[in-house]
């Protein structure tokens, strides 16, 4: 793991891509996350609510984006994590996660690094705009 003094503002995190999300993964995530909304697993229900088809859970995309951060620092060092849900992902979309260092500060005796995060789908749409704060020694 990097040390606080080795990290520079503007530094780009290694990109993280999750393989195309399958309908099977959506069914498993529905069960595992407790989000049983049928628009994620039932094509008919999704169309009935005005969508072109079943959509990927926003919280699945967020969980994937989280792995960009926990691939860079251990989860133990995570202090906050936030996202705005900007566009929808559909089954078959890969989720491409990017991040960069946008700030450094010291607070409460900890060295903190602020990250700007983004997730894009394989169709070129930005689906998440987020941020995280992590601690480095």
């Amino acid at each position, binding site marked *: 793991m990097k040390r606080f003094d080795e990290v520079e503002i503007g530094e780009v995190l290694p990109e993280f891509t*999750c*393989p195309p999300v399958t309908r099977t*993964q959506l069914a*498993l*995530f529905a*069960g*595992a*996350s*407790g*989000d049983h*909304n049928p628009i994620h697993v039932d094509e008919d229900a999704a169309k009935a*609510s*005005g969508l072109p088809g079943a959509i990927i859970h*926003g*919280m*699945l995309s*967020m*969980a*994937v984006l*989280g*792995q960009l*951060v*926990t691939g860079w620092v*251990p*989860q*133990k060092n*995570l*202090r*906050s*994590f*936030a*996202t*705005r*849900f900007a566009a929808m992902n559909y089954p078959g979309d890969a989720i491409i996660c990017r991040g960069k260092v946008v700030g450094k500060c010291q607070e409460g005796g900890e060295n903190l690094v602020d990250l700007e995060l983004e997730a894009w789908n394989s169709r070129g749409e930005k689906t998440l705009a987020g941020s995280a704060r992590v601690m480095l020694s």
Partner: protein
Amino acid sequence: MAVKDIVGKVFDPFSIEVEKGRVAFFARSIGASDPIHFSEAAARAAGHRGIVAPPTFGFTIAMDANQSFMVLDQLGIDKTRTVHGEQEFIYHDDICAGDTITGQQTVAESYDKKGGALTFIVTKTEIKNQLGSHVCDLRTVIVVRNG
């Protein structure tokens, strides 16, 4: 009830037990392979009290506790007119397998955008564990399409 009248409302406290199998299932379903979600030894070696849930698992606890649609149900808003706009987690401690998590949701604020075409409802949920530690704060923004 109008949206502005629900701001400040504090819902009843909830309690959820975090099962080891559920943490592993959740981790597998998001593609997380870090052994801290599956192995007690690996989690302890990484500085956790026990098998630790992935960072967004707090939302699943709120889901299991039927918190996610509480505001919409109280307001009688059709869920198909809403989207999850934003989600934030502020971490103070780990959520570990075997924990009993308690929490309480508050409606923090609401505001309109696009000349009233959209209403934003912000809720905050503070969660604690059985040791009395403040674990995490969740901030959820729900967007309602009006008209």
